[in-house]
C-alpha cells in the first residue's frame, strides 16, 4: 500500500519536475547531452569542446545575469540590453582613448562605463516607469534607437587614438577595434588552468561568480526582497509601503550596469571591441539564454542564469562542429535562430498572470 503510494508520488514528482522544467527546456537539454555523447564518435575533441563551452560561458554569463534584476522587479525581459552595452562600449573606448593599457585599462573601462550606465539606466528606468505594462516592446526600441544614435556618435565624437580611428580619415571609430595590448584576456589569464586541450579561464569565471554572488546576496537584502515583491505583485508592494517606481528604477539601473560590465568581459574574452551595429541584436541571445535556463517573464534566479548560459552556449558551440563532422552540413546558425527565438516565443505565450 505504502509502496504504491510512494511510486505514485515519485512518478508525480518526476512529472512535476518535468512540468516545472518545461518541455522545450527538456528537449534542449536532451539535445545538448546528445551532442556531447555523439561528439567523440564523429571525431570532435571533447576537451576542446568543453573548454569552448566554458570559455563562451565566461564571456556571456554576465550579460545574461543582467536580465535578472528587471525580471525580478516585474519589468519583464530586458530587450533594452543594448543601452547598457553602449555604456560599456563608451567605457572601453574612453579607457583606450585616455591611454590606459594592459589589464589596468580593463579596470578603467569598468570605472568609466559606470557613470554612463547609471545615467542611461536612470533615464531608461524613468521611461519604463511611465509605460508600465508595455515595457518589453519599448525596451526593444529604446535599445535600437540608442544603438543607431550611437552609430552616428562613433563617427562624430572626437576620438583620436590611432588604434581606434580609421587610418585614412584620422577620425571616426573603426567597426572592430583589437584589444591586443589592452585588456584582451585580462581576466581569463588570471589563474588560467591548462590541462591538455582543456583550458579554463579561471579569472573570468571567478569574476562572474563574484557578480552572481553579489546578485544572490542582493536578493536577500531588504531592497532585494522588495524588488521580488514588486515583481510578484506590485499592488501588494505598494500597499506594504514600498515605493514601486523607485525599486523598478533601481532594477533597471542594475541591469544596465551589469550589461555594461558584461560587454567588457565579453570583449576581454573575444579580444575585440565591436561598434556600430554589433550591439543591435545582443539582447536576444541573452534573453533566450535565461529563458532556456528556466526563467519566465516574471521569475528568474541566478541558477537560471548559469544553467541557461551553459545550455545556450553549449548548443551554439557544439552544433557546428558536430554537425560538420557528421553530415558536412553546417546548420548551426539556423538552429540557433530557431531555438533561441522559439524559446522566447514560448515564454511570451505562457500565461504568466494566471494567478491573478
Amino acid at each position, binding site marked *: 500500500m505504502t509502496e504504491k503510494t510512494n511510486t505514485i508520488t515519485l512518478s508525480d514528482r518526476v512529472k512535476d519536475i518535468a512540468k516545472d522544467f518545461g518541455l522545450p527546456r527538456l528537449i534542449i537539454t536532451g539535445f545538448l547531452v546528445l551532442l556531447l555523447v555523439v561528439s567523440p564518435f564523429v571525431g570532435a575533441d571533447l576537451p576542446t569542446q568543453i573548454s569552448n563551452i566554458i570559455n563562451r560561458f565566461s564571456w556571456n554569463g554576465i550579460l545574461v545575469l543582467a536580465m535578472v534584476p528587471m525580471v525580478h522587479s516585474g519589468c519583464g525581459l530586458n*530587450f533594452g540590453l543594448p543601452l547598457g552595452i553602449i555604456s560599456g562600449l563608451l567605457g572601453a573606448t574612453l579607457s583606450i582613448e585616455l591611454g590606459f593599457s594592459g589589464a589596468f585599462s580593463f579596470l578603467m573601462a569598468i570605472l568609466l562605463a559606470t557613470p554612463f550606465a547609471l545615467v542611461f539606466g536612470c533615464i531608461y528606468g524613468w*521611461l519604463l516607469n*511611465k*509605460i*508600465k*505594462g*508595455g515595457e*518589453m*516592446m*519599448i525596451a*526593444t*526600441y*529604446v535599445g*535600437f*534607437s540608442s544603438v*543607431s*544614435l550611437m*552609430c*552616428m556618435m562613433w*563617427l*562624430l565624437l572626437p576620438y583620436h587614438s590611432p588604434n581606434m580611428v580609421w587610418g585614412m*580619415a584620422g577620425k*571616426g571609430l573603426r567597426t572592430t577595434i583589437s584589444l591586443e595590448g589592452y585588456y584582451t584576456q585580462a581576466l581569463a589569464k588570471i589563474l588560467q588552468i591548462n590541462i591538455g586541450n582543456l583550458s579554463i579561464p579561471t579569472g573570468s569565471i571567478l569574476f562572474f561568480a563574484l557578480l552572481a554572488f553579489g546578485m544572490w546576496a542582493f536578493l536577500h537584502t531588504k531592497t532585494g526582497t522588495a524588488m521580488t515583491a514588486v515583481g510578484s505583485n506590485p499592488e501588494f508592494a505598494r500597499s506594504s509601503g514600498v515605493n514601486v517606481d523607485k525599486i523598478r528604477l533601481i532594477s533597471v539601473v542594475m541591469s544596465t550596469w551589469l550589461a555594461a560590465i558584461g560587454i567588457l568581459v565579453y570583449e576581454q574574452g573575444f579580444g575585440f571591441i565591436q561598434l556600430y551595429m554589433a550591439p543591435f541584436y545582443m539582447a*536576444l541571445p541573452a534573453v533566450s539564454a535565461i529563458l532556456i535556463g528556466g526563467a519566465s517573464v516574471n521569475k528568474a534566479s541566478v541558477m537560471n542564469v548559469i544553467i541557461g548560459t551553459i545550455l545556450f552556449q553549449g548548443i551554439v558551440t557544439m552544433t557546428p562542429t558536430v554537425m560538420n563532422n557528421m553530415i558536412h*552540413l553546417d*546548420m548551426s*546558425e*539556423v538552429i540557433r*535562430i*530557431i531555438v533561441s*527565438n*522559439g524559446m*522566447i*516565443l514560448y515564454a*511570451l*505565450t505562457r500565461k504568466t498572470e494566471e494567478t491573478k
Partner: protein
Amino acid sequence: MNKINYGDLLRRFSVPIMFVIICAVCAPISGLSPSYLCNEIVTRMGRNAFLILSLLIPIMAGMGLNFSMTLGAMAGEIGLILVSDWQIVGIPGMILAMIVSVPISALLGLFCGKVLNMAKGREMITSYIISFFINGIYQLIVLYLMGPVIPIKHSNIKLPRGYGIRNTVSLLSMRQKLDNLIPLNIGGVKIPVATFIIIFLLCLVIIWFRKTKLGQDMRAVGQDMGVARDSGIDVERTRIISMVLSTVFAGIGMIIYLQNMGNIATYSSHSQIGMFCIAALLVGGASVEKASIGNVFLGIILFHTMFIVAPKAGTVITGDSMIGEYFRVFVSYAVITVALIMYETNKRKNKSKAGEQLALAQEEANE
C-alpha cells in the same frame, strides 16, 4: 475649448509636422533637384504603398503594429524564387508568384494569429519575435531544403554547393514590368500607372472591407474584446483572420516591391521591411490603434523624402556620407519608439482620466 482642440491636433500630428520640418531643412541642403526627388518619391510610392497598406487591418482589429508582416514578405520571396527557377517571366511570373505565395502567407498568418491569441496584451513584442522565429524557418527552407527537397534547377539561383539559394536572385526578367506596363511620363516624372491602379484597388478593397460585417466585427474586437465576445462575435477567429489577411497582402506587396527592385536579397530583403513600413506609417500620423489610408500615403512621402535627402544632407554638412545613413536609421527607430511610448502613456492616461473626472466632480460638490 477650441484651444484644447488645437493642442490635441498638434500632439496628434506632431510626428508628421516634425518630419515636414526635417525634410524642409534637409532638402535644400542636399542639393537634389526637385524633379529627381519627385521621381524618387513616385517610384517609392509604387514600391511600398501596397506593403504598408497591409498593416492597416491588424490595427483595425486592435492587434497593434504588425511586426510580423515580415512573414508575408518571406512568403512572397519564396514565390518569386520558385517562379524564377521555373523561368516564368514578366507579369505572368508575378501573378504566378502571387498565387504561390498566398497559401504560404495564409498558413503563416494562421500560425501567427494563433500564437498572438495566446499572448494577448503583448501582441507587438510577440509578433516581433515571431518574425525572427519564422526567419529561422525561412532560412532552413531556403538554405537547406531548396535543392534536395524542393527542386531548384537553375545554377544562377542555386548555390554552387548544390543546395540553398544564392545571396541574390536576379529578377531581371520581371524588373519593373508592372511599373512599365502602362507607360506614362509627366514632366520627366515616370509614373508606374499599373502599380498605382493595383494600389488604388487595394485601397478600395480596404474601404469596402470596413463596411462589411467582418470589418465591423474587427473594429468591435479591436476596441473591446470582452464586449465583442459577449455579443457573440468569435474574437479569436476574427483576430486570426485579420492576421491572415495582413500576411497575404504583405506577401503580394513584397512581390510588387521586389519587381520594382529587380532582385531579391534572399536573406535580408525581408528582415527590415516590417520596421521601415511601420516607421513610414507612423510618420504619416498613424498611431498604434488608429491608422487610415491617408496616413499611408502621407507617411510614404515624408518618410522617403527624409530617407533620400538625409544621407546627402549629412554628407554636405559633415563630409561623411555614413552620418546621414545612420541618421535615417536612427530616425526610423526613434519614430517607432516615440509612437510606442505615446501609445502606452495614452493608455494609462485614459485610465486615470476617468478617475480625475470623478475626483473633480466630487471636489466641486465638496465646495
